[in-house]
């Protein structure tokens, strides 16, 4: 960037993650996504007078999980507050949230940038709150409100202003997504809104200690938008400063269609939420014993998993990084490993190669989820076993894999039906080799007189003649022997 010699951006992110509980935060209504509008509602989440919210214990468990995974201090006592504002999708006129005493504080996560450099990003706080409903503006001139999402539990993860580039913000968000999905507390789907991100952005002259005026950027509902929106906003601020303008503290909305940030139309006092302790909810007291219970049940986190892969399966760090980058990929890889008969390093590396290569390629091309990947772990494991014991060659494996994408047959069935079994019999291969060597006497002469590069030509001809089914190792050995004799 032309400005990066002179200016330094300062970015902090607020991430909202929808928790994967079955019922809402303060009532028993279902949290299911996509049900018909206003069908998962009750007097509590609709904000009827005289009702009493009761906290879902799982919300606390999930939040402590995230707190522990991000090295936060878990508050022994925390309370809920009312955040007051008027909006049609907020029936009560306030959102139940935490303000002065959030449950988690002072943590950090480590992010890894593209060049392998690691950086710690501070977590200011993580608190529990409830979601608002959904407003739909597109149907006609009125606004339509669906209250199904009212009261669905969220955690808000607030970072320190520790990020210095859109790239760092991107990697931070990827890390947060990785954590919540590994912890099983959020599905991490940004497009469906299960994970939402707002940013606070300011710029300052390099070397300046004081922070510039910050602008809030909202509505960045995909990973790529976060990077692009921040890029845009940083440049807008730099250009304003270069002109000698002052930055106004305001809220901007990212407009993905136009690729720009537009100021939000709202009244100044909209930010006066008049927080106060919610008298309907009693304090949450978290004992050491409770924290330990949650800690014991923490699943293996991305870095631990990566180290174990390197240790246990002897795969390179690069492989381990790719495989653990997303919970779903790691899960698929491990399920394939579980179904292997040949439990060798060679087999593990093959599973790694196939998962990182063809499996992820198809996932990216077809946007199918790992969970619904057409080649189930069991079938991929069987294919790798057949590769390891030499029943098929890697070339044939490609064909079997492609076939499995559209058929439900096992690799063994496909091989038999299509006659793809690898030929390992030196007698059969030798006969084909003899024919080829006789047919290409000239090239044989060339080889014997020192032009050894024609070796590959013979291998190719043999494979062609045997429709790729010959065991390449045996072809190589026999060929070498025959040419030298």
């Amino acid at each position, binding site marked *: 960037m032309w400005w990066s010699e002179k200016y330094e951006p300062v970015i902090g992110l607020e991430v909202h993650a929808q928790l994967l509980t079955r019922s809402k935060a303060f009532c028993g*209504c279902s949290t299911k996504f996509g049900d018909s509008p206003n*069908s998962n509602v009750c007097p509590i989440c609709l904000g009827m007078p005289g009702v009493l919210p009761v906290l879902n*214990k*799982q919300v606390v468990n999930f939040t402590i999980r995230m707190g522990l995974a991000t090295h936060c201090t878990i508050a022994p006592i925390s*309370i809920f507050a009312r955040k007051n504002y008027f909006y049609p999708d907020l029936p009560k006129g306030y959102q139940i949230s935490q303000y002065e005493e959030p449950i988690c504080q002072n943590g950090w996560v480590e992010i890894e940038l593209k060049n392998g450099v690691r950086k710690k990003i501070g977590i200011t706080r993580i608190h529990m709150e409830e979601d608002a409903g959904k407003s739909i503006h597109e149907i006609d001139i009125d606004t339509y409100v*669906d209250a199904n999402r009212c009261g669905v539990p969220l955690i808000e993860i607030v970072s320190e202003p520790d990020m210095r580039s859109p790239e760092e913000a991107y990697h931070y968000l990827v890390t947060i997504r990785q954590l919540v999905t590994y912890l099983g507390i959020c599905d991490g789907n940004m497009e469906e809104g299960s994970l939402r991100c707002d940013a606070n952005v300011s710029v300052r002259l390099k070397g300046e200690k004081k922070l510039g005026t910050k602008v809030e950027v909202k509505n960045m509902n995909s990973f790529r938008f976060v990077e692009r929106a921040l890029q845009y906003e940083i440049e807008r601020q730099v250009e304003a400063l270069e002109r000698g303008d002052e930055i106004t503290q305001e809220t901007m*909305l990212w407009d993905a269609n136009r690729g720009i940030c537009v100021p*939000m139309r709202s009244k100044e006092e909209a930010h006066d939420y008049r927080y106060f*302790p919610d008298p309907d909810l009693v304090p949450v*007291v978290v004992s050491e014993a409770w924290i330990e219970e949650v800690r014991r049940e923490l699943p293996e986190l991305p870095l631990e998993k990566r180290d174990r892969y390197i240790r246990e399966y002897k795969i390179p760090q690069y492989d381990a990084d790719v495989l653990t980058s997303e919970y779903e990929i790691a899960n698929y890889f491990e399920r394939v490993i579980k179904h292997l008969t040949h439990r060798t390093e060679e087999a593990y590396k093959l599973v790694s190669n196939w998962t990182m290569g063809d499996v992820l390629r198809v996932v990216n091309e077809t946007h199918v989820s790992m969970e619904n990947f057409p080649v189930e772990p069991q079938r991929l494991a069987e294919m790798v076993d057949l590769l390891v014991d030499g029943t098929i060659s890697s070339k044939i494996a490609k064909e079997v894999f492609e076939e499995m994408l559209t058929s439900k047959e096992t690799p063994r069935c496909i091989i038999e039906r299509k006659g793809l079994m690898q030929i390992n019999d030196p007698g059969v291969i030798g006969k084909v080799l003899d024919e080829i060597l006789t047919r290409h006497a000239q090239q044989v002469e060339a080889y014997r007189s020192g032009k050894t590069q024609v070796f590959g030509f013979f291998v190719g001809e043999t494979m062609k003649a045997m429709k790729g089914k010959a065991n390449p190792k045996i072809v190589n050995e026999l060929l070498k022997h025959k040419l030298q004799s």
Partner: protein
Amino acid sequence: MSVTLKDVEYIAELARLEFSDEEKKMLTSELNQILEYMEQLNQVKTDTIEPLSHVLDLSNVFREDLVQPGISTEEALKNAPSATEEFFRVPKVLGEK
């Protein structure tokens, strides 16, 4: 600490309430009386007392994460001033929250 007419107008705006000039004047004086009473309470020494966040001596009242039936869509929309078969209907919302 005293409440001015401006404060009353600001709070009224936040609460989406409209008052006549006379009512605003009355509210200003009433709110000031309440605050004066609070000032009186402020004279009590409270340095050694933990702030109270809840009047009941209770903590950790939870429910298990179980889905319980709510009410029907029809019932939910029954009292709404305006609704379709499935949605609450409100005047167009301009701007964002």
